[in-house]
């Protein structure tokens, strides 16, 4: 059996484990990316802890996680349940809501930046010309994180809805019909049949959301680059800036370690839930 796993294992060791170990090691060195690394002990972590930008980035990651554990998940669950009940509309609606997912992140980011939020060329500009006083949320340090989150939610929730719908379709039709015959309305059906029926999928997606939320980078980098005034800075942009603009690879690696720590925690929770489920089902 191990022989079958060997190719995948080798690939994972080469492209995941080795870089991960090197990154972890780099966190304990001062290194500009081209010269000779110098041992620094915990200095990178101490400097990071003393940097207020790190803490605001970490806070933004938590806010981002909270947003993505609720808004797109709720939207997707309601849409999936509605589509389950309306099979005729399913193909058309699924195609439409899935569309943002297949558009390149860079394109989506630029569309929102230039055609929606821009006060020069976007819908915001048009609204201002027609008497609505609206400022570009991307230019406001207190709103920029939420504005970028809105872009990512648009890109993400349709995919979630399709995944949830696929899971809901695995629920026995008899069970759904029985609930309906017992007089269950949409929300009762949703609460007592559909949600419990997709619990493993829902748990997996929530755990993945936590992991992805601590790795979020592309949308923020493309749309705001973490600004203005660090308003939308997250750990990934913090690490990127240190590595590639400040020539401080050690500090970037330390931030990457913190990102991985949250991913590890989420993975541990998922494994624990799986073990608990397995124990209950045997």
């Amino acid at each position, binding site marked *: 059996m191990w022989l079958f796993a060997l190719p995948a294992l080798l690939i994972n060791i080469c492209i995941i484990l080795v870089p991960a170990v090197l990154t972890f090691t780099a966190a304990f060195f001062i290194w500009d990316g081209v010269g000779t690394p110098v041992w620094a002990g915990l200095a990178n972590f101490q400097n990071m802890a003393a940097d207020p930008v790190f803490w605001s980035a970490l806070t933004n990651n938590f806010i981002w996680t909270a947003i993505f554990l609720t808004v797109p998940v709720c939207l997707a669950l309601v849409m999936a349940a509605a589509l389950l009940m309306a099979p005729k509309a399913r193909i058309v609606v699924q195609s439409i809501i899935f569309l943002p997912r297949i558009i390149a992140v860079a394109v989506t980011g630029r569309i929102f930046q230039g055609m929606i939020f821009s006060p020069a060329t976007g819908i915001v500009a048009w609204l201002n010309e027609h008497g609505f006083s609206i400022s570009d949320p991307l230019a406001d340090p207190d709103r920029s994180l939420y504005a970028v989150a809105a872009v990512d939610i648009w890109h993400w929730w349709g995919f979630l809805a399709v995944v949830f719908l696929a899971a809901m379709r695995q629920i026995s039709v008899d069970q759904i019909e029985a609930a309906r015959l017992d007089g269950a309305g949409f929300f009762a059906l949703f609460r007592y049949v559909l949600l419990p029926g997709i619990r493993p999928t829902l748990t997996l997606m929530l755990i993945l959301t936590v992991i992805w939320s601590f790795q979020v980078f592309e949308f923020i980098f493309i749309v705001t680059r973490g600004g*203005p005034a660090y308003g939308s800075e997250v750990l990934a942009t913090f690490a990127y800036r240190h590595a590639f603009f400040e020539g401080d690879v050690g500090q970037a690696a330390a931030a990457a370690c913190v990102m991985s720590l949250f991913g590890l925690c989420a993975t541990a929770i998922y494994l624990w839930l799986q073990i608990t489920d397995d124990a209950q089902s045997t």
Partner: protein
Amino acid sequence: MTMTRRQLVASIPAAALAAGLPRGAYAQDGRKVVTFWFGQANSDGQAALRNDLVEAFNASQDKYLLQLEVKGAAVNNLLKVALVAGNGPDIVQTAGPAYLTAIANAGQVLPLDDFAGKYKWKERFLAPLLNTSVYGGKLYALPRDYESMHLFYNKELFKQNGWKLPTNRKEMEEVADAALAKGIIPFGAGNADWKGVNEWLMTVFFNNVAGPDNVRKALSGELPWTAPPFVEAVELSKAWYNKGYFGKNYFSLTIEQSFLQVVNAKAAMAFSGTWSFGTKSYGMSKPDTVMDVAPTPTLGSAFTGSLVHLACGATLSIAKTSQNVEGAAAVFEFMLTRKFYEAMNRDWPGKWALPVKDLPPEMLSGIGYPLFEKTIANLHEAFSKGQYGFTTWTFWPGATNSYLIEGIEQVWLNKITPDAYLTRMQTLFSQEAREGKVPPLPPRTA
């Protein structure tokens, strides 16, 4: 001849190997290949690179074949990784001395002193710019161009409103206030696509408020960044931002959109760099009937008159692992020919303004771009005499410069005070100075 399936399969690795030929490879015609990675280039720039550099060089001799790849904005990061891995190009182009410092300190590029002696480069380049690439007494790069921040303004708009070109802060603020009163943005500015616009502005504020001598003292460690002249500079930048001098949409407009505001008379002026001459979409025509340009006037009491800012937008070195050192040097020598200088500055103004000492006016006269000719001639004279300020992207070390760019947004948006900003800058600068990361500093004269 038809190939069997087995022959076809066997040829794939060979083809793959050929596609990734190591440096030092030979072209089909027997010429030794010289590789060169370039960063960002618009379509005009790419055409100029292809015609005026690659094809012209390759047609000029039969020993070397120049191969150029346009790598895009990530070239600086790619280059570092490639150099460490020993797979970089023969010609190493960085985005200026601040980027070169780490690479030169790490010994990833070769000293050029032997070539400099052979080709008399030290005699042919302007010393202030050439010396930005001297580390430990050795020359590690040639400057590819020189740049400066300038005041671009809509001369038609000034004429219509009876405004005079400002020569000091008071006059500048009078024009700005008059513009604001008419609903005109005083300074077209926007950093939506490039946060480095922040440092363009801060280069002006630090130099033109605090004065270039104080900036030089700070860069050489004789004066802290927390000193009163710099506090005044940062406070003025904040005051101007909060008064709306840079418009309501600084964080939402791209560089091009903000510059076009000046061309379209929606804004009166812009602090921008000499690279603006090379971007046709900016609306700078040749000769221009709308726009004009001047060195930036004093904005404080540290000096009177106007000031240009010494900048080197790119450096050219030879990789330590290059297998074709002679070929790379031959490319550099080709760039110093009069024919190349004229062609490149005609086709891509401002991008390849090699800072050579002998710049007779007729070298640029065929370009037909009076504003550019005037600006380059003024820069050449000022740089030759040592009369300049210091640009952040050339002389500030990496982490300090990164904070200068990011942190000033916190000041402008009232998240931190100017004192807090400068204190953090001083902390970062002190650390980088201790680590030898501050680029070499040329002398200046009054």
